[in-house]
């Protein structure tokens, strides 16, 4: 945290409080400035892709865009909580993979009903978050180290339980059977409906975003997490439950990552031991593009959703242009750095206009 010296604008502070009425307006204006850049970027990127390939803007593409952003967004929601709390979680992608593999193994090989396997996988997510959180807060090991370790641990577990195998409930391995009713239930979790074949996974994403949005922006938990994340020392001296809040944020990240893994497994129908690993960095990119600060204390749900949307847009747009896989990676790199640079520029602008 930077120094708190007497800032230059204190004469303004001494001005009579005439503009109290506009406090809400100013807050909205600030949010607009903050998010404005991101959503303008989304629109501009859309226009560019559209001009290159008019097939980009049609209902089907937009619907599939929403579907493909959803798992990154759901993991991003959890990561946003952790980052707002001033910590970091590198294990979200590995947790996604472990959840999918755990459901596959329990359900297809272990004959555990899907109705139990899913809650069980979510509980593993909570447990992993608890593990991360305890090591970070009580053993005081830096979160980067702890979660880098658990990333590998979880991937190792996925390899172990799946015996490095791939599972598809429609085509179970020789000698195993999947109950058709349960299969139907599992598929229904992300079933597609309507003329444009929208997946229910999108609805899950929206529902979870509303839930996390409430937690972060409308609840005491979020209010305190935001404070603690930016200045844990002050939180501790004011006797706020700093550790408990951080542990809770890790647990929520674990559960949300597990949920994303289960939902994607339901949609893709196939689990592999290494799924999810490659989404680790896109999830970070989405959260950072969305305006969260790695220094803690800053981040929004709407920003993270925007970040995930922008990434999905690039992914699908570039795929339609068939430029090859390198293009996606290059763009991901540019966009991540560019988004943060833009945010810094906008913050300066805001400081100049609002100060």
């Amino acid at each position, binding site marked *: 945290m*930077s120094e708190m010296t007497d800032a230059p604008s204190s004469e303004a502070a001494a001005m009579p409080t005439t503009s109290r009425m*506009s*406090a*809400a307006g100013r807050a909205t204006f600030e949010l607009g400035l903050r998010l404005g850049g991101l959503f303008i970027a989304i629109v501009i990127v859309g226009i560019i892709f559209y001009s290159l390939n008019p097939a980009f803007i049609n209902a089907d593409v937009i619907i599939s865009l929403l579907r493909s952003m959803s798992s990154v967004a759901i993991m991003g929601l959890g990561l946003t909580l952790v980052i707002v709390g001033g910590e970091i979680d590198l294990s979200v992608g590995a947790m996604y993979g472990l959840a999918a593999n755990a459901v596959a193994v329990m359900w297809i090989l272990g004959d555990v009903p899907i109705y139990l396997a899913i809650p069980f996988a979510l509980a593993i997510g909570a447990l992993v978050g608890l593990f991360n959180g305890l090591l970070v807060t009580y053993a005081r090991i830096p979160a980067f180290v702890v979660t880098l370790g658990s990333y590998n641990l979880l991937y190792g577990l996925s390899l172990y339980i799946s015996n490095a195998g791939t599972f598809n409930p429609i085509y179970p391995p020789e000698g195993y059977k999947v109950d058709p009713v349960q299969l139907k239930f599992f598929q229904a979790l992300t079933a597609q409906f309507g003329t444009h074949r929208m997946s229910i996974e999108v609805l899950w994403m929206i529902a979870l975003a509303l839930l996390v949005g409430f937690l972060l922006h409308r609840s*005491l938990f*979020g209010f305190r997490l935001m404070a603690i994340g930016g200045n844990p020392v002050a939180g501790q*001296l004011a006797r706020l439950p700093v550790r408990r809040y951080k542990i809770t944020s890790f647990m929520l990240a674990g559960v949300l990552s597990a949920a994303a893994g289960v939902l994607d497994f339901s949609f893709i129908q196939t689990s592999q031991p290494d799924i999810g690993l490659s989404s680790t960095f896109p999830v970070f990119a989405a959260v950072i593009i969305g305006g969260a600060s790695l220094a803690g204390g800053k981040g929004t749900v709407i920003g993270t959703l925007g970040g995930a949307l922008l990434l999905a847009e690039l992914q699908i747009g570039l795929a339609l242009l068939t430029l090859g896989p390198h293009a996606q990676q290059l763009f991901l790199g540019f966009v991540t750095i560019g988004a943060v640079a833009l945010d810094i520029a906008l913050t300066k602008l805001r400081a100049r206009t609002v100060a």
Partner: protein
Amino acid sequence: MSGGASGRIEVRGLHKSYGSTRALAGLDLELRSGEVLGIAGPNGAGKSTLMRILAGEERADSGELRLDGAPWSPMATAGTVAVVHQEPQLFPNLSVADNLMVGREGSRLRRPRLGAADRALAQALGIAAYAGRPLSTCTLATQQRVEIARALARDARVFLFDEPNSALTDDESDELFRELHRLAEAGHIVILVTHRLGDLVEHTDRVAIVRDGRVTAILEGEALTEDGIARQLVLGGVQVHAEDMAGTPPIAALPGQPVLRARGWSHLDDAFDGIELAAAPGEIVALMGVEGSGARELLRSFAGLERCAGEIAVAGRTDLAGLDRSTAYVSATRQHSLYGHLSVGDNLLARLGRPEIAGLGLVLRRARMRERAEDAVRRFLIKARTIAQGIRSLSGGNQQKVAIAQAMMKRPILLLLEEPTRGVDIRSKGEIYRLLRGFADAGNAVIMFCTEVLEMFEAADRVFVVSDGRLSAPLLVKDHTRVEELATSVTRLERHGRQGR
């Protein structure tokens, strides 16, 4: 080392605005080599902006700077102006010697070593003995001297001391001022910015008063007195706090249960031992002691921040949960109380929970939060445009009011304050003392750790001097009609305490 006799800096018509806020409004000033110039002004008057411009950290919007008569841009000539900070801005992970070297290593691949000139310099400043030690293990005073040495090695001509001794002991600060005078005698331009009026009178040749972005007065010679500076600082403002406080006679300790009672209260790491202390409702108690006396640790221990043994009761309750609920602690370091990334309103409410700002299901009550924050801004005399503005846009004094208000809003019955007005302008000081008195008058108690006698005189009812981890007999502030008398008593007790061991 250069520093020509003709050396002087002229500042003409300096303007600087941040958005709609004017920080400097045509500031004129002349700095002469060989003299120590003091700069004083309320927080937010433009002092810091002037310092940043001189140090080359920021550019003025308009105005002229001349060095030895020639146009001068501090930004283009880095190293001309050296700033000695309250908290040195060095490389704590490197050794003292490496700190002297960083940035001047040259192009050789060989690891650089101190030259003869550097060694002489280190010797002169008394830091040669620490050359191999990591800087982070040195005292603040040593670190400041490293900062001075570093600047001298770079031929700095201007030394800007920014609240340099606010965290030093008396001896260390005497040592620092000796160094400051040596620099002036060597022909450097020396500037001292401080809130301590005594230091300005004792150690500067002239004092420039900065108010509202201009130099409004320059005091020198006969006119350079503490009273004179104080009068300039509050000119046109509210009344001086001393008169202000006179209207509210301290309530004598009320009968009944004390708010705090400590018996045989001892620090497990030996900062203090066998403390017996009680604070009555309505009372403001000051613990006075130099760094290392145990006074600071004693205060922190009442907040549960130190490992201690013995008996302690707050309002008769001895359990931890009771202590937690009924006490609130405010650190001397503002960064430890305030959340720099949050708004004024959120900072005020940061210690509250259910049911004050959240209802069932921990849902925040937005309307109530706004109401409470706006009410607090009024009640605690915080000068803010809106509760939505960032905390860092407030002046230091107003930030400190927010820090104390944040603790008071938790409705503790015992408020524990560490140097409650450190680095705060004189006007805010008076307002903070008034807030503390109001809080105590409602039947609560305040215990504060102070290092300045004036503060105890203005704010406290009883003073305990802590030396070598033991409490003196209490001094009643009302038995002293003038601050000098209290200072004499305190010094006597302190000397006595040190010899008593």
